[in-house]
């Protein structure tokens, strides 16, 4: 039986009080709840404070480039669909630098779980606005306030019929763990946008700010109702719903490849007879 201790405890490079701490703990709990051993899991991280998270637990890890966690995760999943693949990074990395990959992963419905630490600000580069910063949010780099309207990842994902779309908040541990357990178990692309404060650079969206607003969805809510999900995805401000907002059962991307019906690409033998036949066609 896997135990949370199997995932280890490490010193981190994060600020005291960072929202990453409860998030890391929730991820470990979810992995244990799913009964996954560390070697069965592959984390793929981008760059940023959030992307450091998988360094602080025991699992396979590919820590790649800023913005590019999703394509690396996609390639790894296609090479070996037996891996439980979790891409993890921040809002700037996934929605900004990696925006094109985010959209394409939804279209593919590749069976990876995308965990986005959303603190609405850039931490590692010290406090610039992020794609999810609210309009008017003042930073050192945006002294007049953010001019753009914020990116709404949930609305985009639901509009594109993403396989699984959820929002978590690090201050509500049990609902967050529950959402993560479901996301990892979902066959298809799963987005979990996780709200978290940045104690160093975001003085607006603080623990008390979120605590007053984040409300778990009632058990009566039906996440398969697309129109209801679209409406819910627009809700932001006084009340912010957390939980599984939308899900469907589209077949995952890797199911479409005949090569993968025979098992993972890794370890497959080269069929010399078949190759010789192919060469014949060039005669």
């Amino acid at each position, binding site marked *: 039986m896997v135990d949370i201790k199997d995932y280890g405890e490490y010193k981190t490079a994060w600020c005291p009080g960072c929202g990453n701490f409860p998030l890391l703990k929730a991820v470990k709990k979810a992995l244990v709840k799913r009964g996954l051993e560390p070697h069965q899991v592959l984390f793929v991280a981008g760059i940023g404070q959030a992307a450091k998270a998988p360094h602080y637990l025991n699992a396979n890890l*590919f820590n790649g480039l800023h913005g590019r966690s999703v394509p690396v995760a*996609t*390639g790894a999943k*296609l090479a070996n669909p037996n891996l439980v693949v979790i891409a993890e990074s921040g809002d700037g990395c996934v929605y900004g630098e990696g925006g094109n990959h985010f959209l394409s992963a939804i279209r593919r419905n590749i069976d990876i779980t995308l965990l986005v630490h959303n603190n609405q600000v850039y931490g590692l580069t010290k406090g610039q606005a992020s794609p999810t910063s609210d309009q008017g949010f003042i930073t050192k780099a945006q002294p007049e306030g953010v001019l753009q309207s914020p990116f709404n990842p949930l609305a985009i994902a639901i509009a594109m019929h993403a396989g699984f779309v959820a929002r978590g908040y690090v201050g509500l541990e049990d609902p967050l763990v529950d959402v993560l357990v479901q996301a990892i178990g979902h066959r298809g692309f799963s987005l979990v946008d996780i709200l978290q404060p940045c104690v160093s650079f975001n003085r607006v969206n603080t623990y008390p700010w979120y605590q007053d607003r984040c409300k778990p969805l009632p058990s009566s809510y039906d996440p398969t109702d697309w129109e209801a999900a679209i409406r819910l995805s627009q809700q932001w401000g006084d009340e912010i719903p957390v939980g599984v907002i939308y899900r469907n059962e589209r077949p995952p991307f890797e199911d479409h490849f*005949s090569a993968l019906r025979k098992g993972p690409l890794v370890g497959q033998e080269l069929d010399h007879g078949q190759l010789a036949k192919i060469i014949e066609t060039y005669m």
Partner: protein
Amino acid sequence: MKSQQSSKQKIRREKKTALLTEGRFLNILIGGEAGQGLQTVGTLFAKSFVRSGFSVHVTQTYESRVRGGHNTFSIRAGSEKVLAGQETIDILIALNEETVDLHRKKLTKHGLIIGDGEWKRKEKNWIGLPLKEFGEKIYWNTACVGVAAGLIGLDEKVVAKTIEDTFGKEHSEENWKILNVSYHWLKEQALEWEKLPANPKPAKRLMMTGHEAVALGALSAGLKFCAYYPMSPSTSIAQTLIDWAKDMDLVIEQAEDEIAAINMAIGASYAGAPSMVPTSGGGFALMVEAVSLAAITETPVVIVIGQRSGPATGLATRTEQGELGFVVHAGHGEFPRAVFAPGTIEECFHLTRKAFELAEKYQGPMFVLTDHFLADSYRDMERMDISKLSFIRPNDNSSSVKTPYLRYRITKNGISPRLLPGLSEHLVVVDSHEHMENGHMTENLFLRPKMVDKRLRKGDGIRSEVIPPDFQGDKKADLLLISWGSTRGAIEEAAVQLRAGKKKVATIHFSQVWPVVPDHFVKHLEQSKKVICVEGNATGQFAQLIRRETGFVVQKRISRYDGLPITPEYILRHLQM
């Protein structure tokens, strides 16, 4: 029948001196606009040559458009190995009248023009076909090829079989009919022309383009995954793999952009699937950050760059050798690599295999540099014995590693034990940050130089496996021609012609352009009276590379950057200047 009689050609061609039997060559140019099927009929014509036992070399030129414009498909055929293309034309097959005007000046003394009789051309070598009587317009291209094939004596049965293999039996009927009509029509004419000698070589040879050879080389090396974003001229590599994906159990994915393509390939390779990304200069520019990622994570990946005219969009469907400096230096930070530049179809196959082997062995990015010309150039080649070729098996033997498993264990040769994630209890941790031996990020400045040195030590291994350049000719030559990549055939044939004029000429071809080992070739440069580097770029990138690596200054360069491939004639013309 009546009209066939009436259209009987008056031209009586004096018999040509034996072209092919003397080991000389015949050049056929098919010209027309995009959408006229000249590539289809050109390919089947070239294949008919190969099946009849001849060597071929195809040069294609086309504009960046789907319909219209002016495209050419030149087949140079010979009874001995054809090394390069030819600018002069023995038979001009004009699928539109513009082709006659554009190319008639390139006709050889006995050259012929074949086209639609309705154009009523006045050229003395004009052969106008009554195409309307032959059949429907969409088959006219086959008719023109049929007449040309008949003229030079290719067996109609060979052409018909090639038609069947190209279109499939059900779509061949109409093509067969018009082929037969054109062969018959030709017999009715009083045309005489040099016939090819009968079957000078065993017919069972292969014909493929440079990029098909790259794709097949990759397949034979064990490729399992390819991600790409369409871009000329390298889409053809991905397309060839797509054609065989079901048979060979491959995953080929069209990515959202080149950045995604290479990151996917790196992810797939990390998880154990030998991976490749084909692209061109502009696409490669987008991939460069990930080249550096493959280097520091020590993940095998093969990158094929089909060069075309730059900068930026440049001439999208024209050839150039302008990315040498870019590819040799691409990627931030310092790390070892190998760059191959095949000059023949055989090299396209074998050097792609070599790139896969090195990528796996030295765990990093390896490169194959082709170009638009080579990508599309059909050539004949010997059948290879596939069963004797080894293929890549990424290491999944977890019992072979010391525990605790350290992905980046510091070793003497710099090569660390690569395991695959999920296949054992060992955790495989890789990182784009500088990292510790266990793969986790570090800012330990004492460890940093050790890790840099570890990675660079792999460069010593790569260097020890460098393919020496191929030197041919007199060791103390009056003239030494240097080539790399696709210009190989042009310099070698130019040398043949110069030697026929009693000149002491040598050639040296580099099919690996990085790293280069001065001991392999400097003596040749120093022993020759005059050294000329022939390359398809404006600034002499390879000449510069030689100077930087050896101190040897190449006195003269022959450059071409008008979008067309370097030909033997081009070299000979520039030698006279």
